């Protein structure tokens, strides 16, 4: 049962083959059995999840109309605020904090009857590509426990690959949904900026952050997308327009006549051979399904990474200023005689990890008077150029595609002391955030040289998220036909699992 897709689990509940309580218990058991090895979860809300499940079962048996994902369990990235449930964003500074309110995404999940199993591990404040920056220890990739599960949302994607949850919520600032999806053989979608409310998402970089669905199939991601998307009066940057019809697109999976643009700059040198070959094969499958493959060029993508590492740290240096021990989280050095300033300093010294401090320092510098125009100002101009590149490219293609990451999952510890090498992992995912458009990653096979999953990225214009689902569903169907069974059926069994 736990290896099924979310919509299959939902169908089983509708038919009465299983209750939500049973399904939830199966996942809780699975977490107990394997999470010591995977470490996808920071907190498991056993009682809360079972109570939610029973409520859905009661509603269903009393004939109430429930949503398509009612009763299906889900793993929530720990950056998303849930009332009363410990929320740390992977940081020591928030240890012990129980939020007094629900994020909009959580409210929507609860309304839809989705069962929240617990909070998943992540790089501290979503800064990282490996989950190694979590203050609570790394998450391990279920494909190979010595490897990273991606980041920052490694906990969410690993929970899907380890069958601890069929659905998860991620957030994506520079690739934190898509890159973990790619390296764990799962599906992850970063919706158009403003498509999903950021209210209750602990901010890393406000102009780039976007929550989105993680799942094992394109249709599951679409179902979850429709649950969490939509205008929210609590988020001034939320788009006030109808949610794109992503479920419809995922069900049809029709790419006939669509133009698919291969971004010249996001391929070639620096991309692993097995990543490239799987990507090329996928293009052939899409062509066979009736799409036209064209090449597009986005010359300014070259500057995306540099500009990203000015904008994101600048915003984070301000967003993270609130963690000062005055109102919530840990407090260090308050022996009664210390000044507020020294308590703030000591708390931030102890509470933040190295990567977070590195970015706060970088951002503080970039925003300083006299440097602002050269750094933040120039980065914003690059951002405009990237948007223009996309606009031009979308004039000749309905969607753009690339490998999601240059390589498959690397070893834990391999890049921990080389931030630049780590940053390069997001080279293909960052342009999407810079332009505020949508991006999806779905598995397109295993790299022959290491047997690890490869991600295929699809990018669509703002508020045209349904196009990613059409293409993603078409590719997924073609690959399934070729493979005979889902990619995750090839994942090695974890010790202790049945």
């Amino acid at each position: 049962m736990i290896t099924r897709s979310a919509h299959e689990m939902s169908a089983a509940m509708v038919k009465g083959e299983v209750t939500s309580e049973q399904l939830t218990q199966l996942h809780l058991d699975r977490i107990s059995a394997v999470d010591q090895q995977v470490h996808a979860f920071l907190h498991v809300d056993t009682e809360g999840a079972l109570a939610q499940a029973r409520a859905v079962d009661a509603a269903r048996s009393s004939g109430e109309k429930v949503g398509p994902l009612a009763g299906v369990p889900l793993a929530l990235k720990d950056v998303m605020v849930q009332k009363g449930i410990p929320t740390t964003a992977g940081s020591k500074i928030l240890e012990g904090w129980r939020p007094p309110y629900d994020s909009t995404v959580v409210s929507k999940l609860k309304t839809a009857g989705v069962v929240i199993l617990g909070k998943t591990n992540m790089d501290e404040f979503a800064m990282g590509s490996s989950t190694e920056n979590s203050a609570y220890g790394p998450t391990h990739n279920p494909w190979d426990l010595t490897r990273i599960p991606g980041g920052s949302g490694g906990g969410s994607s690993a929970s899907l690959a380890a069958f601890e949850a069929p659905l998860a919520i991620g957030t994506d600032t520079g690739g934190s949904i898509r890159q973990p999806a790619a390296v764990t053989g799962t599906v992850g979608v970063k919706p158009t900026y403003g498509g999903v409310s950021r209210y209750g998402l602990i901010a890393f970089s406000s102009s780039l952050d976007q929550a989105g669905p993680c799942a094992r199939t394109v249709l599951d991601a679409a179902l979850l997308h429709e649950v969490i998307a939509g205008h929210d009066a609590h988020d001034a940057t939320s788009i006030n327009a109808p949610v794109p019809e992503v479920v419809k697109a995922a069900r049809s999976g029709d790419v006939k006549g669509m133009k698919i643009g291969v971004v010249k700059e996001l391929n070639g040198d620096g991309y692993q051979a097995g990543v490239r070959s799987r990507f090329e094969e996928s293009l052939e499958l899409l062509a066979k399904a009736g799409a036209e493959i064209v090449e597009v060029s986005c010359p300014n993508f070259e500057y995306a990474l540099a500009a990203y590492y000015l904008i994101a740290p600048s915003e984070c240096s301000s967003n993270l200023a609130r963690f000062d021990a005055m109102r919530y989280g840990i407090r260090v050095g308050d022996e009664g005689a210390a000044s507020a300033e020294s308590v703030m300093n000591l708390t931030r010294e102890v509470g933040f990890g190295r990567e977070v401090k590195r970015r706060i320092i970088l951002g503080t510098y970039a925003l300083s008077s006299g440097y602002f125009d050269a750094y933040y100002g120039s980065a914003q101009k690059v951002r405009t150029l990237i948007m223009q590149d996309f606009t031009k490219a979308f004039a000749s293609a309905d969607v753009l595609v690339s490998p999601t990451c240059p390589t498959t999952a690397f070893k834990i510890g391999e890049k921990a002391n080389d931030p630049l090498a780590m940053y390069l992992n997001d080279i293909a995912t960052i342009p999407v955030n810079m332009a505020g458009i949508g991006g999806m990653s779905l598995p397109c096979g295993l790299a022959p040289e290491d047997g690890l999953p490869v991600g295929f990225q699809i990018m669509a214009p703002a508020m045209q998220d349904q196009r990613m689902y059409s293409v993603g569903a078409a590719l997924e169907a073609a690959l399934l036909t070729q493979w005979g069974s889902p990619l995750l059926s090839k994942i090695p069994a974890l010790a202790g699992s049945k």
Partner: protein
Amino acid sequence: MSLTYEDVIAKYEPVLGLEVHVELNTLSKMFCSCSTVFGGEPNTQTCPVCLGMPGALPVVNEKAIESSILIGLALNCSIAPFSRFSRKNYFYPDMPKNFQISQYDEPICVNGYLDVEIDTEEGIKKFRVEIERVHMEEDTGKSLHVGGATGRIHGADYSLLDYNRAGIPLVEIVTKIVPGTGKYAPEVAKAYVAQLRDILRSLGVSDVRMEQGSLRCDANVSLRLIGAEQLGTRSETKNVNSLRSVERAVRGEMIRHAELLNKGERVVQETRHFQEDTGLTRSGRSKEQAEDYRYFPEPDLVPVAPDAAWIEKLRASLPEHPSLRRARLQEQWAVPDKGWQQCLMLMLSTSLKKRYCWVPIQLVPVAGGLERYLASLMKAVLQLLN
């Protein structure tokens, strides 16, 4: 060897600059739906947004935008078709996010003026005070420093924080420098704040209670030798909590600056705090080294782009300007310039004696005698007129 005011103005020309902070009387705060009522139990009017909880986001209060536009229009400003909020970054415990959301380089209203009149021995004099900008921001919380001698943070045993005020909409009205007031600088400053208060009250956008802090004035003063081109170093006096204090603070700072300059010392660019009891100011934060607030556009908010038709609708809804209304009534009632206040006084006392008007005469003894009662009535009537 203390200087007299006459000594000061014989030698120096004062240059004024006034910054007035107005708490708007919107029902809810600038970026959340918490109540703005004054005087609640500490921290009872707070929510995740105004407490800066992780994940919480600001959403602009439309009513506050409307009030700001009304203020701008009443002060003859241009309303920016596109303005933005920025983040002003600095650490202080009364700021829940450790940044203040404020308008910086793109304020909502710019380039206005306010004409003020003062009554002098040479007759009524008119001065034009030019307005540089009117911008929106959020108020901070309040700190209460307990223990220690001064009630200041230094030397306190501990501090208490009340965030009820955090996030209350503030409008800051900044004048351009006001030269040419000569010896009347203190009176012009007072008249400007008084006139502004009248306008704000007539617009109904603020309680304008200086004693409660819903209208706060920072007075910037500098001196230069008469005839000199270059401006002197200014001081910025805060904590000026009444109209009378505005006048006293400006006068006091003029004398203090002149004493320093006469001794060949320099004026330090700093914030000073007005002391109500002595009428003097004491040194606050130095502004010699400009603090770096690392301003950048607030990414959680979209630009403010008021619709032109809406602005025109607001313009049409403006109440009669208090000074114009006074002038109109003065003309209609044929009241001579000088005798305006005395005349009102007379009208009231006459009506009291003749017992044929709305004045509840039984209240006179309770209010502490006829004179005080009349004074408070005067105040009420003037408020009505405004």
